[in-house]
Structures are given as structure tokens and as C-alpha cells.
């Protein structure tokens, strides 16, 4: 009885998952049939794109903030809120990916990796869109 509790212990960390049985596969096994690399590249790409988005948004917010200080209006306020919300979204989603890596990609990594391909393609589209917006804002 007590031994059982001891065995459960280590699995309640960040590596544990509440989806599916946690103890079927041995520890440190590469998750997924595609192996560790695919997951790694996908996640790192998503993080890089996310950080690029964050940088672009910070540049946009810098311009919008300056304009808002000079001209307090619905228009400048709207731009500022718009960019801030997108920044929040990118910080949260990228933060989750980073946390996932920092805390170790157990089976968890695989779980959230599945929707990652479409998600990071959204991120890439966002990167393109933000680049265009920044370019016409900076002109």
C-alpha cells in the first residue's frame, strides 16, 4: 500500500499527464512514433516564430504608444489595445511551449504536439501579417 504511493509520487510532476495511463511507457522514452526530433523541431520552430511575433508586436506597440501619447483618441487607443492583445496571446502561447521544454517534454510534449503543426502554421501566417503591418506602420 505504502509502496504504491511511493511509485505514484514521481509521476505527479510536470511530466505526469492526466490523459491516458502514465505508467505504460518507461521513463525517458521518446514520445510518439515520429521520434523525438520531429517534436523537437516543431516545438522549437513554434517558439522561434512566437518570439519573432513578440518582437514585431513590441515594435508596433512602441510606435502606437508614442502616437497615443501625442494624440489620445479612439483610433490610437484601438491600435494600442489591438497590438497588446496580440502580444498577450503570443506571450501566453509561446510561454507554454517554453515551459513545456523547460519542464521536460514527457508524454505531455506529445499530447500538445499534435495540434502544433496547424497551430504553428497559424503563427507563421501571423508573422507574415505582422511584418506587413509593421512595414507600413514604420514607413
Amino acid at each position, binding site marked *: 500500500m505504502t509502496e504504491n504511493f511511493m511509485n505514484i509520487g514521481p509521476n505527479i510532476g510536470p511530466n505526469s499527464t492526466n490523459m491516458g495511463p502514465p505508467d505504460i511507457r518507461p521513463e525517458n522514452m521518446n514520445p510518439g512514433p515520429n521520434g523525438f526530433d520531429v517534436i523537437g523541431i516543431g516545438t522549437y520552430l513554434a517558439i522561434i516564430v512566437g518570439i519573432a511575433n513578440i518582437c514585431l508586436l513590441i515594435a508596433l506597440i512602441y510606435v502606437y504608444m508614442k*502616437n497615443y501619447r*501625442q*494624440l489620445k483618441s479612439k483610433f490610437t487607443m484601438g491600435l494600442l489595445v489591438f497590438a497588446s492583445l496580440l502580444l498577450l496571446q503570443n506571450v501566453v502561447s509561446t510561454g507554454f511551449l517554453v515551459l513545456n521544454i523547460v519542464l521536460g517534454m514527457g508524454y505531455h510534449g506529445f499530447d500538445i504536439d499534435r495540434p502544433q503543426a496547424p497551430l504553428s502554421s497559424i503563427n507563421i501566417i501571423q508573422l507574415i501579417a505582422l511584418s506587413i503591418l509593421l512595414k507600413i*506602420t514604420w514607413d
Partner: protein
Amino acid sequence: MKKLLWWLIAGMKGGLNRAKIIKALNDRPYNANQLSEELQLDYKTIRHHIKVLEDNNIIKATGGKYGKMYFLSSSMENNYDIFDEIWEQIGEK
């Protein structure tokens, strides 16, 4: 026109300087050099803003390659009250 003015002044980098140029050109035509002296801005900055404003049909140029004089386009003159509205909301400085 209204949205364009808002974007050029409040949505882009350097909007305040752009507004100052429009304001100055409403009084009388200037060339780029005079504008940079009048507004105490870098000549290159002025050139850049002039190009953006010209591309967006806010101002027009007359004269040859050198000493081009700039003045407001007719569509800008017709909509000057919109600009005034924006200008009034720009705080001191």
C-alpha cells in the same frame, strides 16, 4: 480621406511631424529645405515625409527637380476640416 489622414498621422511612425508639415503647407507653399528649417527637422526626415504624403496624394509639387515647391492637394484642401479635427486633439507639442 478621413481614414487615410488618421492612419498617416495617428497610425504610423512620425505622424506628428507629418501633421506639422500639413499645417505648415496650409499657410503657404514651401520647398523641402524651407520646411526643414521651419520645423527644425532633419532634411532627410522631411524628404521622407514629403514622399509619403505625396504618394498618398495629400500634397503636390510644382517646379523642377531642384527647389520643388510643395502645397496641399485639392482633395486635402477640401478636407482640411478633418485635419483640423485631428490637429486639435494633438496635445501641446
